[in-house]
Structures are given as structure tokens and as C-alpha cells.
């Protein structure tokens, strides 16, 4: 388990940096929601001796980071940073609804 924790911590740091850098460099290509990627402690990712589970986590994290690096280094992303994206539009108003005594044409059961 310690190997898993070290691997996750190390890759979390790398991912957090990559996400932050990518967004700072070029915010427009992202409709991103990186979510929390908390770094617990700095650690050197062990290259050997990992369990299959830890290795799987590490491989996946590397794939994530590779993709993030590709996006961050895409043409125009760092050299010519785009202007900040426009503010997200406010959600459209909900349609008006009212209680009625008219007969229903269908029903909404819980899904």
C-alpha cells in the first residue's frame, strides 16, 4: 500500500502542475474540470517493485500527464496565449410550470 500511496502522491503532484500550467498557458481549449488533485507529500515515484495495482495507477497517471503535455504544447498554446474565455452565460430560465387539474398525458416516475 505504501507503494500505491507514494505513486499516487507523486503523480498527483505532476498532474496538478500539468493541469495548472496548461490552463494558465492556454485557457480557451479547455472546458475542463480538473477536480481536486491534492498532493500529500513530495516523493520519488518508484520505478520498480510496484504491485500490479500501483503500476496500473502509475501508468494511467502517466497517460493523463502525457495527454495534458500534448495539449499544453499544442500550437499557439504557450507562445501565443489566447485571451481569456468569455464569462459563462447565465443558465437559461426554467419554463413556467403550474399545478393543474387537467388530465395528464404522461407521468414522471422516479428514474
Amino acid at each position, binding site marked *: 500500500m505504501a507503494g500505491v500511496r507514494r505513486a*499516487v502522491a507523486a*503523480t498527483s503532484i505532476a*498532474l496538478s502542475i500539468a*493541469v495548472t500550467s496548461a490552463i494558465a498557458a492556454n485557457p480557451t*481549449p*479547455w*472546458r*475542463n*474540470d*480538473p*477536480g*481536486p*488533485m491534492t498532493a500529500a507529500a513530495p516523493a520519488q515515484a518508484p520505478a520498480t517493485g510496484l504491485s500490479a495495482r500501483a503500476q496500473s*495507477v502509475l501508468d*494511467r*497517471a502517466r*497517460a*493523463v500527464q502525457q*495527454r*495534458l503535455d500534448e*495539449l499544453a504544447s499544442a500550437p499557439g498554446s504557450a507562445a501565443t496565449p489566447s485571451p481569456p474565455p468569455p464569462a*459563462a452565460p447565465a*443558465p*437559461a*430560465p*426554467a*419554463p*413556467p*410550470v*403550474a*399545478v*393543474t*387539474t*387537467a*388530465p*395528464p*398525458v*404522461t*407521468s*414522471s*416516475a*422516479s*428514474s
Partner: protein
Amino acid sequence: MLRRRFQAMGTDVELLLDVTASDPAEAALAAARREIERLEAGLSRFRPESELSRLNRDGAATLSPVLAQVVALALALRTRTAGLFDPSVGRAVRAAGYDRSFELLRDRDEAPGPGRPGGGGVVVATDGSITLAPEVELDLGGIAKGVAADRACALLASAGPALVNVGGDLAAGGPRRDVPWTVSLDTGAGALTLSLPYGGLATSGLDRRRWRRGGRWQHHVIDPRTGRPSRSDLLRATAVAPSAGEAEAMATALLVAGAGRGTALANGWSVPAVLVPRHGRAILAGGVA
């Protein structure tokens, strides 16, 4: 009124088209059905070959534009609901035991797995590629039926006023000639009928899709804060929004929030809602007149 019923996405689907029979109307009904089945094929967690399964398995994938939009919408709604709706709880749903199509679920003696809170990292690029943080899996079950209803309704609306009902998640493609669409809700103390001129209406509840693990009831609505099935004091929540996809996510968020906070959120978000507590009378909120 033309009406078609069939099974898809693990539930009952109903297509209503308020026109007289014609070839264009039949073509629109057929196209709407194909669209729902296409989305099911792409978004199902239970089909190993689906785009969603591939994404969850590999941690990264380039999805078709429609499915990438569904993921982007789900993430936007996670933000809008302050995380009360969260598509990144796929592992939590599986840990609770919902690891196969619902009709195949059986009660089991083993205890459910540990909770897995939401908030997982998901990166969506404009080219449709999606990358998941380690240990994150997406479950789009809280929005897919609504989106399917929206897209099918858009196809139907080319032929006339339309309503699509995918397992209780409804999309209305415009008011009918004389009166709005009317939708019945079960409040536990009788039926309540709402008029819906257009847009989406969806109900999320804890009383459907239940099973037992280790002698304890489980259900499919995960509270992203705990990563376990919600222990809300609400039994069901119905929400109205501009689209069925949004309504479905909002209904889940209000259900997870519970009666007190859910009422305040519906009012604050101006989301018309009907909240049904486990005990007591239904609560109308968010501007339901």
C-alpha cells in the same frame, strides 16, 4: 396523437407526437427511436464496447462529438450544483453493487465496498478527447436519459408538437396547439399534475433501482460528498429546467441535498421543483404556482 412505447436505456420510453398519422411523422418517430438507441449504445456502463466503457477502462479516449458534449454538460452541471450532482462517482456506484444492468442485479451477502466521494478530475479538450484522473470512472446515468429525451424530442419536433419520456425524464418540444403538456407526479399522498409548456422535467428517487448488499438496502443515487448511496430525507425530487438533461441532474442534486437545503436551493436557483419527503407532504419550490 401518435404514441409509441418501447424499452431502451433500461427503462420505458414513450414518444408522443401531436399530429395525425403521416409518412413524415412516422419517419420522425423512427428517427427519435434510433437516436435514443444510439445514445444508449455509446453511454451505457454495462456494454463493454460502449464509448463510455472504453473511456473508463483506458482512462482516456476521444469520444464522438455528441458524447463529448454529454460529458461536458455533466461537468458543467457538477459546477452549477456545487458538486451535488457529479458524474465522476462511477466507482462509488459500482462499490455499492450496481455493477451490471439493473434487471440482472441480485441481492448478495457481501457488504458493499467503501465509499468513493466525487470531485474526480476530468479533462475535456475541444477535440473531444477526454482524460480521467487515476481511479476516476464516469457514470452518466444521472443525465443520459434526459439528454436522450432532449435529442429525440428535437427530432420529433420537426414533425409537430412532441413529448419524449425516457423513464420519467421528459422533454417537451413545444406547446401543443390548445393546452400545455400535462405530467402526473406521485407525491406519496396522491397524484399531482403539472403543466409543462416546453423544456424538461425529470424525477429522481430512492424508491426505484434498489438492491441489498450484506442485508442493507442500496440504491443508485450516490451522494458525492460521501461516495455512498444518499441518505436523504427525501424520497423523490422532481425538477424543471430548459432541457431534460439539466432537469435530470438538478433533480438528483435536490434529492441529495434533502428537504431543507433542497428547498432553499430550488428557490435560489429558480428551478421549479416538487420535493417528496419520506414522511410528510410534498413541498413545492422554485416557483411552481
